[in-house]
């Protein structure tokens, strides 16, 4: 099994506050960039006009009906992915843990393929529910097989379930090219052309995930001290892990259903956060939630700039940017040998 120890030390409160301030500013900046940049050049005044003095001009419509929803979606998905990754890494005590690793994306993919092939569903609004169900089912399956107790088994279970899903998926794609056409578009992960009305139904699940994450911050700190110590302090490690998995499942299912599989945000961000503020989950979780959207929207904007006149999908950008950044992180990790 991969065993990694990070060189992470608790940081003084001043550093944490500074990081928090910078994170908030970065989020604000990236939101502005996401609304301001695109294939149509719109001045800052035009952006503000579209946001606050909407009068139906072409630029206003682009801002209000295209870029704003896309940006909001990016923020929500980024929050979900950042939190899911941070929770999962805390539960699995394995910094390689990522929602993508647990077969969640592929559960959603299988459900979408089944939805189109077996139930002939075509509208995005309905497919979202297939994706959500599949992602959740994938998480539950992995948690059941892996058990809530051992981090190692959890990761192995993820690999196993994912393999079965991928096999089923590819089989359906080979048999039916209509599926292929739909799947390849969905499988890259993108914030474009998502029907916000159709996604609104996911909101309660998203909020539940957020609340659970907030509740779990302190117990996760206790569990991090080790099974026996945690029990001695009156915590219930198994309960914390199960609740945590529920939150991870909800958050990553919402994210995957909303914009397809986006890898690496959940893997990257908690790493960066722990390096900045130390291991205290009460800081790691909220900062991961703040910086998740910074990475996601940043990648989305970058994809629009690099791909112009078209764009490179955000899922591709996160793979490339996140992967490269992760190489840097991995090189700095102190490896522990068994």
């Amino acid at each position: 099994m991969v065993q990694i120890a990070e060189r992470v030390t608790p940081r003084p409160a001043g550093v944490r506050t500074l990081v928090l301030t910078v994170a908030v500013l970065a989020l604000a900046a990236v939101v502005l960039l996401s609304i301001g940049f695109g294939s149509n050049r719109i001045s800052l005044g035009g952006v503000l006009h579209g946001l606050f003095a909407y009068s139906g001009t072409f630029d206003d419509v682009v801002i209000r009906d295209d870029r704003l929803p896309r940006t909001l979606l990016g923020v929500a998905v980024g929050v979900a992915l950042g939190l899911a990754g941070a929770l999962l890494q805390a539960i699995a005590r394995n910094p390689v843990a990522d929602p993508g690793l647990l077969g969640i994306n592929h559960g959603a993919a299988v459900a979408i393929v089944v939805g189109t092939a077996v139930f002939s569903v075509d509208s995005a609004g309905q497919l979202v529910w297939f994706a959500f169900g599949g992602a959740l089912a994938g998480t539950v399956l992995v948690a059941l097989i892996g058990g809530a107790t051992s981090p190692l088994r959890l990761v192995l279970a993820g690999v196993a379930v994912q393999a079965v899903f991928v096999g089923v998926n590819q089989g359906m794609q080979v048999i039916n090219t209509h599926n292929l056409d739909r799947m390849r578009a969905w499988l890259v992960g993108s914030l474009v052309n998502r029907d916000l009305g159709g996604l609104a139904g996911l909101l309660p699940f998203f909020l539940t995930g957020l609340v659970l994450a907030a509740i779990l911050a302190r117990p996760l700190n206790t569990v991090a001290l080790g099974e026996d110590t945690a029990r001695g302090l009156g915590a219930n490690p198994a309960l914390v892990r199960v609740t945590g998995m529920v939150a991870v499942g909800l958050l990553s299912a919402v994210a995957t259903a909303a914009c397809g599989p986006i890898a690496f945000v959940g893997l990257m961000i908690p790493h960066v956060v722990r390096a900045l503020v130390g291991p205290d989950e009460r800081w790691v979780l909220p900062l991961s939630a703040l910086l998740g959207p910074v990475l996601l929207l940043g990648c989305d904007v970058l994809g629009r700039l690099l791909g112009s006149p078209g764009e490179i999908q955000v899922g591709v950008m996160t793979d490339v940017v996140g992967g490269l950044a992760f190489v840097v992180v991995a090189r700095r990790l102190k490896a522990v040998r068994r």
Partner: protein
Amino acid sequence: MRTWLVVSLLALVTLVLVVLSVGTGDYELTPAEVLRTLAGQGTKAQYLVVTGRLPRALVAVLVGVALALAGAVFQTVTRNPLGSPDIIGFTTGSATGGIVMILLVGAGPGLVAAGAIAGGLLTALVITALCAPHGLLSSRLVLIGIAVSAVLAGVNGYLLVRAKLEAAAQAVGWLTGDLAGRDWTYFVPLVLVVVVLAPFVFAHAPALRMLEMGDDAATAVGVAVPRVRGTLLLLAVALAAAATAATGPIPFVALAAPQLARRLTRRPGPNLAASAAMGAALVVAADYLGQRILSSSLLPVGVVAAALGGAYLIWLLVSSRGRVRAA
């Protein structure tokens, strides 16, 4: 003793499956007919059918051997059951090489194979270079492999979205891992690679066993650790890339075959011969099942391998509840 029993049994299973597989298709042959034809006593029609299907089965055997050996080497060197080439990105690299050839160059099988091998070796080179300043520490190798693999997966996805549907379908077909239409032109280069490289791997078996004990122990008994490890990894990468070039990436064989072999032989260590025999049996079995499961359409071997491999791992995890060190 037990090891050789396992190897012979697996070889026998593989042989039986090859015969069954050769008899399977639009024109069915009984195993006896297949054997008689192979012995040179079939009708001309039977001869044509058998020689037409034989290379596919033999490619399956060789791919299984190559993937399993690569997996055994990687898992031993990284001292990690998850450290197989499919997990740490070398096969993704081969896949990228292959689909770049299909989608950007529009190339035929020969160039696709060349692209796959180039992609696999290049990825290995990049990953090794990224690990270099601190040596090939096992966990770092896996981590960086996963990272590089993700970058490449992103590239693959982007290429697929950009491509025309027809070309994308061809690329996905190849990415799935398929043995359909693998004739002697696929067999010849593959057999050359395996016959040349596999003996080198086997020659390093003792050193590999020492490496599993740890670098210090290996150094203490006189193994030149960096050189041996480098050589072995290079051999393994080449084997995995050659297999991928022939069929597209077939998941799970490199991961599961060494683990299964270890369980059957009840021996720790690389178990090279048993792994190779297990790999061959697995791929041939997956291909045979793929041709038999559905009557209407043929399932590619990669799909069956993924489903079987995953199901096996799930079973392993469920059946070993309580014991933490599964697999």
